């Protein structure tokens, strides 16, 4: 299993209701279903991913996150997940708030644009960073709202969101003492466990 999913799964209660926003091929939900007997719903828009979810036996709804989540009831889920999708949303701040309306807690992961590699790329080449992890050019990337660990911390503070845990890992999803010390500089992927204050 992907190490970031390993980190996430420890925050999921057995038999809880989990909503995964942008659930991809359903790998995480399938794992949680097997390991924790969760009651799951995934939202996804990609045809192939939806088919994979069905093959995984994961409940999936074809729904575009940019059109909002008003069809979901307040407090109807225990945990709402948003993994590697935040940066692709039109209104990421609104969606994070919606997550915490629908769920008791939320888990958000995103690529940290404050990472040293991005900083060096931009400062030496003077161009928008492109990497294996973010391979698209600026004009055709689905990732339209990049942020850094510091930026997300600020958003949480502004919107009265409580950070239960913040972890950063590298692209191999390994953590280290140095990353704990300088998360915004060394972390490539940020993982947040949040709730309402």
């Amino acid at each position, binding site marked *: 299993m992907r190490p970031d999913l390993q980190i996430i799964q420890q925050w999921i209660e057995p038999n809880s209701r989990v909503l995964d926003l942008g659930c991809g091929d359903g790998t995480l939900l399938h794992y949680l279903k097997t390991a924790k007997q969760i009651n799951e*719903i995934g939202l996804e828009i990609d045809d192939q991913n939806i088919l994979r979810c*069905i093959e995984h036996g994961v409940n*999936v*709804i074809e*729904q575009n996150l940019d059109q909002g989540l008003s069809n979901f009831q307040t407090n109807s889920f225990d945990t709402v997940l948003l993994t590697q999708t935040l940066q692709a949303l039109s209104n990421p701040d609104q969606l994070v708030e919606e997550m915490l309306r629908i769920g008791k807690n939320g888990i958000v992961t995103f690529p940290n644009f404050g990472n040293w590699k991005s900083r060096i790329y931009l400062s030496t080449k003077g161009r928008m960073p492109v990497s294996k992890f973010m391979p698209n050019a600026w004009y055709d990337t689905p990732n339209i709202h990049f942020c850094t660990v510091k930026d997300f911390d600020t958003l949480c503070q502004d919107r009265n969101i409580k950070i239960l845990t913040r972890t950063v890992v590298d692209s191999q999803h390994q953590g280290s003492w140095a990353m704990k010390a300088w998360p915004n500089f060394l972390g490539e992927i940020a993982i947040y466990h949040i709730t309402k204050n």
Partner: protein
Amino acid sequence: MAMELPEDSVGIIEPQKIYIEEPLTLRSGKILPAYDIVYETYGNLNADKSNGLLVCHALSGDHHAAGYHSREEKKPGWWDTCIGPGKAIDTNLYFVVCMNNLGGCGGTTGPATINPETGNYWGPDFPVVTVRDWVNSQSVLMDKLGITKWAAVVGGSLGGMQVLRWAISYPEKLAHAICIAAAPKLSAQNIAFNEVARQSITTDPNFHDGYYLEHNTYPKQGLTLARMVGHITYLSDNAMRAKFGKTVADFENEGGNFGRDLRSGKLSFGFNVDFQVESYLHYQGERFSANFDANTYLLMTKALDYFDPSIDYGGDLSKAFVNSKCKFLLISFTTDWRFPPERSREIVNDLLKAGRKVTYLEINADQGHDAFLMPIPRYISSFKAYLRKVYQEICDAP
């Protein structure tokens, strides 16, 4: 000429008939003392009777969902694209049952069958039946077949509404509800189209207040017109443009001609059939009127109009699903304007509100409402994948 049957066909099928002696109390309060059910089955029921799958038919459908009645039959059953060995509803895995609904004209007791009390055709005296009554009678057939729980109940359009009713009325008796191109209830626009269809039938001079069979006739004009109107609502604008715009327009070079192909190459400057679309509708309508009972058409459209499971729950459909235990699969099609995707999403949202497990797909398709009968690759592959998973559940069950 006798033809070679396709390999993925269920083959030659013989419809079966069962006489039900127990009375059925209808939603209207009327009682049907006894009745015949005509049905077909495809595939084999397994030893523990856990692989039963019920298919519910729509307005103009019947029990003949797949295969052929004879080698001379030109067209297979109405859902042959989806039912057969290796198809979405795989008859190698499932025991598929499809019955002609009460009030139908496929052999099940209805207006065109004899009322034993009078010795005459039921005609317009056949009681108005509802989706709920159909589902109750389907449950009776299920008991007769010795099946205690369907692996899935599946249907499109009016068939999808029966699926929803199953999930509400018989929560213990199905594991999966697959509801395709349906709506939680009809809109005023839907009802309006149905009323035009009914009016065209009942105002036909050959209708004879519904007793046309006694007069050895039937309201051919009215039924043709009803079907023409209905047929328009099953197709999308794009589907019609494509269907009637291929021969004149060279799409590559000149673009479409809006589906305005002429029947004889020139305008008649009269009130005859000028365009291919007119000719097509006439043909479809007439063919339909020769094979379908007008009173049945009236009953089926009423069943559609009356369908509203939220009615017992103060208008809140989500409350209707609170006791449902099955998982749900809903599918809609982008160009369906009879029951558009928004209508399916209403159902999905009420299922979510009720805390049910639901999967929902919105399939890009040009064919309008009729898409649910078409071999659209994404639709078929998802539908098939879902039912494979259901079968795996059956096999894994302790």
